[in-house]
């Protein structure tokens, strides 16, 4: 439990700095530090049991069917990394407090930092490889935010994007690799997989799994040829660089190699791939670092080189190499973090981190210089500093390595890399701090405040103490961690400065002396570098990325070109192709179900329908006519529903038809009345061909379905409608009871559509839209906008329509009718008033806002469902009772009726909001007075109808 808590603490704690931001920078930093400290203490509370040989674990299933569980465990390796991540995290928090300027939001920075920290801790504590992947991806995302923290700088954004692309695509490979690994191991728990190394290695899928997982690890740890993203990530603020590139992000790949070492290392493929990859990275990184003038770039490539060193050690696949690797991870974290922070201090105080503009800082910033000297000495591998120890161990291991029969490759190249590494370390320290004091620093350099150099001092102290007393200080940690890596007992070894005259000592001496020589001959080496100038992985990356962009753009221009007809055509063609393919792959032909013999009325209706459809094709450019023809089709559809036992549908269809026609008429009033002829005969022909093919397909499908028998699931509904739902109209009972949740969702969708319409038209009377309206005004105006006959008729009909709607609503549960239909009828009655008497007249008399109607409808329907929850039934369970009222007699009252009321209100609101909004736009053109007459309803303030001053 505490383990999971240790992982989650930084995640939840990430909110703390956001909240504490306004309390001032010091409090914000302290609060953030407290979060990290809590997590660190939670981890360390397990340290005694880990060091006594136990492995604390905690697990809850998450998605057991997929093998995903929320499980954590803490062995020596996990403890080592978690301590490193959280311990150095504390120092970074302190350092960042002084490093970031007051213009940067410290709260947001700490928020990102803690999120990242949580993800890192998650990686190292996960016991489940799927969970590990989740955290792995989280580090990619959060490091993207951290690297791009100064998002106003283009190089920041570019660096962040590049890091995300490279580590993200590596992450995809890792997912695939982990899935294969889990599949062949038969478990996704790391502790289980480590036990089944033999079985995993013998699987034919072992090599793909290994390659994919290595791809993930190599991209994350910037191994050649994926090393190029890391230096570009240096555009981040220095605390981020120090954190990501010394202790965390890039070490995640190393961690993964260490974690799975017992499974992979015994395989030959591991040695033959990983060891040379690390060696090459070590060499190339060092070589590039030597010639960087930017201090941070130098350190970045040096990091690449040291990551290569560690990777190579893991790749050598011997237990002693693993010990050396663990030890070097610890040493590198201390000296590299200190160096990054020193570089940041120089940048901060001197105003530049370009080596060519620096030099002579020793007297101006003595504390920083001393600390940087210590850390550089360690990086160079000078005795009595911790870097020397692990580097010597590395050389010792390399000296014994025979690669494909060649004895000299590893010792020679590893020594060469160590030599160059010594040279760039000298360059970093000497060119920055020694030499004459210059007069042209951008700022006047001085030592930073105590809080800024304190973290560097702590790390430098560690560098010295470990360097002097390795066995006493780092010994137990390295031993416990390395034995967790190899998964068993370690051979005998000694962490000591003096091992006698070993080959490694000789190689170390060569590296240190040769490094000094190389530094002295820097000018000649620089000439040599130009020979290799053409080799740049970034240009390959850039070319790849711009190629992808060009391809994507060409694809978009070809397919997504903004032409709706083309989209529709492509979509329809695809559907058609799928349909045709399915048609020929399955038995087809008419079914055997007895057909109903055709009758005269049906044939007549068919002929009318066919005439309407064909007429539409020829006269669709006359928009009013096309609307009339379409309504005719709707009318026939209603008759069809009526004929085939669906009175509810017939009622709904005909009322929706009316509403839709009104809606389209209103819109048509504003848009052009005719469609121009734009397409060639060939275009029309191909459209016609596509349309015919689609129509033929749908028709055949319909015929195929209708002539076959089927199994219905409706028997339950028919049987239970009366006893269970308390209604005899099964369609209505399904709507408001059996599938009430569906209907509930539907009225919400309708409400959203109506509110979108409102949003689209509410501000249509301003700006460009208003100017268009002004130009078409003359056309929209009618000579006689409000004919007397129509005005009187609609007002007389209004109360009658309301009575009909009430009747339809009340009987809905038992006879055809219900909330939908009743709502449509009321809406039609209301909209008729708008049409006959104009928007202003009607709007002035509207007591109920349509939006309130929609809201009330959804709320009432929802509350009906909630009430059943109160009684302990599932949501939207309905009940009914029989009520006896004097005069009316006994009748049935179902709770579903209140749900139907909600549906009713929502439908009225939706229709009114849509139509009234369009009418409101048109009301601009209303100038005629509404005829006054006996049917007029006087307004409260004594005015009479017809005054159009409301809206105009």
């Amino acid at each position, binding site marked *: 439990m505490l383990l999971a808590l240790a992982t989650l603490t930084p995640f939840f704690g990430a909110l703390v700095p956001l909240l504490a931001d306004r309390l001032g920078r010091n409090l914000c930093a302290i609060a953030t530090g407290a979060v990290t400290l809590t997590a660190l203490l939670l981890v360390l509370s397990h340290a005694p049991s880990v060091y006594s040989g136990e492995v604390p674990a905690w697990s809850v299933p998450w998605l057991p069917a997929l093998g995903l569980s929320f499980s954590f465990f803490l062995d020596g390796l996990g403890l080592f990394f978690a301590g490193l991540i959280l311990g150095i995290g504390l120092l970074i928090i302190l350092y960042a407090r002084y490093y970031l300027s007051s213009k940067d939001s410290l709260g947001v920075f700490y928020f990102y930092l803690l999120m990242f920290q949580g993800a890192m801790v998650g990686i190292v504590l996960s016991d489940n490889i799927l969970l590990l992947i989740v955290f792995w991806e989280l580090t990619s995302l959060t490091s993207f935010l951290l690297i791009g923290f100064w998002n106003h700088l283009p190089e920041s954004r570019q660096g962040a994007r590049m890091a995300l692309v490279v580590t993200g695509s590596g992450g995809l490979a890792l997912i695939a690799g982990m899935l294969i690994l889990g599949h062949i191991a038969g478990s996704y728990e790391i502790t289980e997989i480590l036990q089944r190394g033999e079985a995993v290695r013998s699987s034919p899928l072992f090599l793909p799994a290994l390659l994919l997982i290595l791809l993930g690890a190599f991209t994350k740890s910037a191994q050649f040829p994926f090393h190029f993203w890391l230096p570009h990530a240096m555009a981040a603020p220095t605390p981020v660089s120090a954190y990501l590139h010394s202790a965390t992000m890039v070490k995640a790949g190393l961690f993964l190699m260490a974690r799975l070492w017992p499974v992979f290392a015994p395989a030959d493929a591991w040695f033959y791939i990983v060891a040379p990859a690390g060696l090459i990275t070590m060499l190339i990184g060092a070589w590039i670092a030597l010639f960087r003038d930017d201090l941070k770039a130098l350190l970045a490539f040096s990091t690449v080189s040291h990551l290569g060193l560690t990777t190579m050690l893991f790749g050598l696949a011997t237990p002693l190499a693993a010990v050396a690797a663990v030890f070097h991870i610890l040493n590198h974290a201390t000296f590299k973090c200190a160096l990054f922070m020193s570089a940041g201090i120089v940048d901060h105080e001197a105003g530049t981190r370009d080596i060519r503009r620096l030099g002579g800082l020793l007297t101006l910033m003595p504390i920083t210089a001393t600390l940087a000297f210590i850390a550089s000495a360690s990086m160079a591998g000078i005795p009595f500093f911790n870097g020397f120890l692990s580097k010597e161990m590395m050389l010792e291991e390399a000296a014994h390595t025979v690669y494909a029969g060649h004895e000299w490759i590893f010792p020679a190249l590893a020594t060469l890399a160590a030599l160059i590494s010594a040279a760039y370390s000298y360059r970093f320290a000497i060119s920055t701090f020694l030499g004459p004091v210059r007069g042209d620093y951008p700022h006047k350099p001085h030592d930073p405040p105590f809080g800024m150099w304190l973290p560097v001092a702590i790390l430098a102290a560690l560098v010295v103490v470990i360097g002097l007393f390795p066995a006493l200080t780092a010994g137990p940690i390295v031993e416990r961690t390395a034995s967790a890596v190899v998964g068993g007992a370690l051979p005998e070894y000694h962490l000591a400065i003096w091992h006698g005259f070993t080959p490694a000592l000789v190689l170390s001496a060569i590296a240190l002396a040769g490094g000094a020589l190389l530094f002295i001959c820097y000018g000649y080496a620089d000439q040599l570098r130009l020979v290799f100038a053409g080799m740049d992985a970034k240009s390959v990356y850039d070319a790849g990325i711009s190629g992808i962009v060009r391809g994507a753009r060409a694809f978009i*221009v070809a397919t997504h*070109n*903004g*032409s709706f*007809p083309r989209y*529709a055509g492509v979509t329809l063609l695809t559907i058609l192709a799928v349909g045709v393919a399915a048609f020929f792959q399955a038995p087809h032909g008419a079914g055997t179900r007895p057909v*109903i013999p*055709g009758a005269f009325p049906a044939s007549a209706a*068919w002929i009318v329908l*066919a005439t309407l*459809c*064909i007429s*539409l*094709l020829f006269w*669709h450019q006359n928009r009013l006519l*096309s609307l009339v023809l*379409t309504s005719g*089709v709707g009318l026939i*559809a209603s008759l069809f529903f009526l004929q*085939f*036992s*669906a*009175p509810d*549908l017939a009622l*709904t269809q005909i009322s929706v038809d009316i*509403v*839709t026609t009104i*809606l*389209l008429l209103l*819109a048509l009033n504003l*848009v*052009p009345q005719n*469609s121009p002829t734009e397409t060639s005969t060939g275009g029309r022909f191909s459209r016609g061909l596509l*349309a*015919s093919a689609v*129509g*033929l397909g749908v*028709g*055949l499908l*319909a*015929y195929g*379905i*209708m002539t076959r028998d089927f199994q*219905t699931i409706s028997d339950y*509904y028919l049987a239970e409608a*009366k006893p269970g739902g308390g209604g005899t*109209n*099964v369609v209505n009972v399904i709507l408001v009871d059996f599938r009430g949740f569906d209907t509930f969702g*539907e009225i919400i969708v*309708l409400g959203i*559509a109506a509110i979108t319409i409102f949003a689209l038209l509410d501000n249509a009377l301003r*700006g*460009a*839209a208003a100017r*268009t309206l002004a130009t078409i005004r003359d056309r929209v105006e009618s000579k006689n906008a409000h004919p007397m006959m129509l005005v009187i008729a609609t007002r007389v009909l209004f109360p009658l329509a309301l009575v009909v709607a009430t009747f339809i609503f009340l009987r809905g549960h038992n006879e055809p009718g219900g909330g*939908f239909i009743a709502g449509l009828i009321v809406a039609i009655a209301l909209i008729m008033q708008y049409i006959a008497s104009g928007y202003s007249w009607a709007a002035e008399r509207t007591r109920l806002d349509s939006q309130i109607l929609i809201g009330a409808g959804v709320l009432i329907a929802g509350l009906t469902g909630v009430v059943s929850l109160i009684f302990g039934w599932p949501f939207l369970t309905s009940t009914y009772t029989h009520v006896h009222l004097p005069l009316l007699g006994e009748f049935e009252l179902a709770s579903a009726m209140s749900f139907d009321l909600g549906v009713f209100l929502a439908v009225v609101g*939706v229709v009114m909001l*849509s139509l009234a909004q*369009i009418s409101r*736009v048109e009301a601009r053109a209303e100038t005629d007075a509404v005829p006054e007459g006996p049917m007029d309803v006087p307004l409260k303030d004594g005015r009479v109808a017809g005054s159009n001053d409301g809206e105009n």
Partner: protein
Amino acid sequence: MELLVASAIGLMTAAAVYLILQQRTFPIVVGLTLLSYAVNVFLFSSGRLIANKPPVISDADAYTDPLPQALVLTAIVISFGMTALIVVLALRGFLETATDTADLPEDELLRDMEDDR
């Protein structure tokens, strides 16, 4: 009778698709309305054609399948919502640009893509 209904569905669909492939917004909306009719009739007919047996519980011995009816009823209402939304989108688009074409000129498309960067 089934043949009549199936061919009617096919006719409506064909006419609807033809209208949807036009270049102006209004025919497209009319086409969508027509397509809604076709689809609703199609869905309904998946419950097979049965005359004079409405699913209202009475003394009758058999009823037609009520489920497609319930689904189509909601479909009719939803298609109204959809049509209304599209009409208003088209209307606002016309008011903003003074043209009701459903085609975006290629140079505008390229300009939009440049803006995205």
